[in-house]
């Protein structure tokens, strides 16, 4: 009996360590296999700086749009019930499972020069493909479903009774939203923001297809990595390391904020 228990315990530990190793080793290898001096040296070129700057620039803009348009949608999904809501929620997750290149083609079919809206847009002399706008649009498209799903969950977690009591105290729905819903949902909303930011930062397939790959204009970090892989693997590894560090710091920062805010809610 004791033997069996020990065996079960060991198996359990082995499974956990094995899974963690499998998940982390490929990412860590980026840092371990090459010397840091070499990584820094390879990073020190215009293409990398341009790509980093472009990535931060486009994802920031994408994020503003995701928050501005995703939040009302998430709130509506969380607080209303109607026929076919389940279907809509599943449909909203489709961009998550769709291959990113397919998304790129889809965006082209809508906003491309011969696309559904592209023809109308070109009348106003607006051309989207091969511009930074296309990069932002691809990122928005890929990251919004994650944001909406996570934000919806945090809105759902806010007790409806709090909203009802707020109204009986003479506070309108709109002001209740800002004084009750947002403060209580904020930790969840922040992780939604972080998750979608990280996703936008790593967006590759749709950008490649829809926005193209031109250094300084549409070449984001993932595209720079992919392009560098064609010739110089060391540069690719260096840029990957940079992308991983940026994403990791971002997620770490948000998780700290999240922890801090949950503490302020639950205790004195």
């Amino acid at each position, binding site marked *: 009996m004791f033997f069996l228990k020990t065996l079960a315990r060991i198996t359990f530990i082995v499974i956990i360590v094995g899974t963690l190793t499998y998940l982390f080793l490929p990412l860590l290898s980026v840092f371990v296999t090459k010397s840091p001096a070499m990584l820094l040296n390879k990073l020190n070129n215009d293409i990398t700086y341009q790509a980093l700057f472009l990535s931060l620039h486009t994802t920031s803009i994408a994020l503003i749009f995701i928050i501005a348009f995703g939040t009302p949608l998430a709130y509506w999904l969380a607080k209303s019930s109607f026929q076919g809501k389940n279907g809509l929620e599943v449909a909203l997750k489709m961009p998550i499972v769709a291959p990113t290149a397919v998304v790129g*083609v889809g965006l*082209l079919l809508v906003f*491309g*020069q*011969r696309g559904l809206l592209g023809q109308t847009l070109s009348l106003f002399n607006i051309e989207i*493909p*091969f511009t930074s706008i296309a990069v932002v649009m691809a990122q928005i498209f890929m990251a919004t479903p994650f944001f909406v799903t996570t934000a919806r969950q945090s809105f759902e977690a806010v*007790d409806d*009774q*709090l909203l*009802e*009591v*707020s*109204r*009986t*105290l*003479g*506070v*309108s*729905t709109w002001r209740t939203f800002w*004084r*009750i819903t947002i*403060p*209580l949902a904020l930790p969840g909303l922040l992780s939604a923001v972080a998750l979608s930011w990280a996703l936008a930062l790593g967006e590759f397939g749709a950008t*490649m297809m829809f*926005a*193209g*790959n*031109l*250094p300084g204009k*549409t*070449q984001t970090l993932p595209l720079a990595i*992919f*392009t*560098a*892989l*064609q*010739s*110089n*693997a060391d540069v690719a590894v260096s840029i990957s390391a940079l992308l991983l560090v940026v994403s990791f710091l971002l997620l770490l920062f948000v998780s700290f904020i999240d922890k801090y805010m949950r503490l*302020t*809610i*639950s*205790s*004195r």
Partner: protein
Amino acid sequence: MLSFQFKKRLRDFTVDISQSIGAETLVLIGHSGCGKSTALKMLAGLLTPEDGMIKLNESCLFEKKQMINVPPEERNIGYVFQNYALFPHLTVQENVEYGINKLSKEEQEVRVEEVLNLLEIQSLANTKPAMLSGGEQQRVALARALVTRPKLLLLDEPLSALDVSTRTHVRAELKLLLGKLSIPTIVVTHDYEDARVLADRVAVMDQGKIIQSGTPKEISQFPANDFVAKFTGTNLIPLLDQETPQSCISFNPWDVEIGFESNGSEYEWQGIIRDMAWLGGLVRLQIEGDETFFAEVPVERVEDGKLKMGDHVYAYVRLEDIRMVPFSPSFNRSRNEKRKGEKRKGKVEENSKKVRKTWKFGFSVISFLMIVAFVLGYKATANFPETTKQVNMIALVAANATDPLNDLIKIFEKEHQGVSINATYAGTHILRTQLENGAKADLFLSADIKHIEAVKEKGIIEQFYPVSLNKEVIVVPKNNPANIHSLKDLGTNPVKLVIGVESVPIGRYTRQIFKNTNKTYGDQFSKKVLSQVVSLETSTKAVLQKVALGEAEAGIVYKTDVTPEFKKKVKIISIPEKYNVYATNYIAVTKNAPNPELAEELMKKLLLDKGQAVFQKYGYDSIK
């Protein structure tokens, strides 16, 4: 002064009630799900009735016919929820201030202090709700509702979230507070004790309707039916000596006498003791016979008489303790419905169980079949190579040569029974990385001399040979929006140009072509063309795809890339011979090929006439 009358359909019944109350406390009592909370929400405006009206102090809050429906935030009704619903992110002080933050700062301070004093919670002002006990939370919730000076106070199960030990105490305090406030108050509860203490008037609700209302004393002494009697703890028994019962009798449990023998009294029943509960000096017996009722007898009687569970006893009540109650038709209704309900429930559960069982069965059958199919299928493929002796060859082939190599492999396999060739088609740099990392391969076809030379230097191959020649062409969409007709137009017409990135062969060849053109069109030509590039792709297929979709207005790819399928969508513009750069594919057999003889044979086939003919069929130039 509040008066209301409204209707709303719920899932199983319709809430349909009307009441009129002054500055008093009305307690709505009923089982959970009887519609009492729904009634409160309709008063507060959180739910909309289907019909009816609500009037509070001469102002109309709701009137169906006149389409009046004042929103909750303008009704000035205090609402305390069952779990108090305090805002967890705000302190007690902030919670209380919440509803009056439009008032001036001084006014706020005065009001908050007043209400905190009233409820004796000044010391908790800076505490967060999570740190409060149930009783403290209730007071904060009351303070928060009262600070807005509501015209009506609604309390939904105000005591049910408290534990038993604090309940009695808090109940008494609440009664005192309600007395001080003297505003119309409606309390909802399922506990008769709450109703008895708090109520000026009690209304018993069942299935959305008020069955009886009156003072706590009235409904306890003269319950309208057994449903009400059960709540108040009174016994109510129909007189069965008539054909159809005209009246019932009601009596208190403590007026019942218990004995083992009949004493011939008019109001006597017999039955078996089903339950005994010790309540201080009394024991509460549940007696089940023709009728079920409660009797409370002193502890001494139980001990002297040696009463125990399961005893058959006689119970009688003196005439002066009997109250006659007119028979209410709802008596039998509530009895019968209960029985019906129980039956119905049983059936539904059975059905759903059956469905679940079928599901489970179906699911396990399907998964079993799938596992069987999977295992059998795996075995079938696993056994295959053993029955027919098979040689597997591996070829690593640059993606541009996909079509001719496919054809040639088929021919080769036909000529050599039992030989099967697995070809990997990918970018040359990927194949090179695979080879360098020890991938087993018989044949390597490279689109780039740089990569095959690097592989040779590492000693993976010994010798390589050119196997096919390819040319570059300009492709434009069928409608040719940028009006490109020659190489020169790429430098003169504004155009969205897509080419390969410099690190792949097509990118290098393309730049070489532009450089070659400089001799004719001037030194700035290639610079100008490159400034029109909108995207750098890593493969010719990506370039072609973008042109075919109409996004790019021109691109430069290998001639062989433009398959008949693509020819439907793009137009080919050839590049003059003198500027064009030949793209050469090279081939080699690896040093440690698993099947060296066959590999040599295959390579020879590719280099000689038959192989070259196939390459030409797909648009390549012969190496000769």
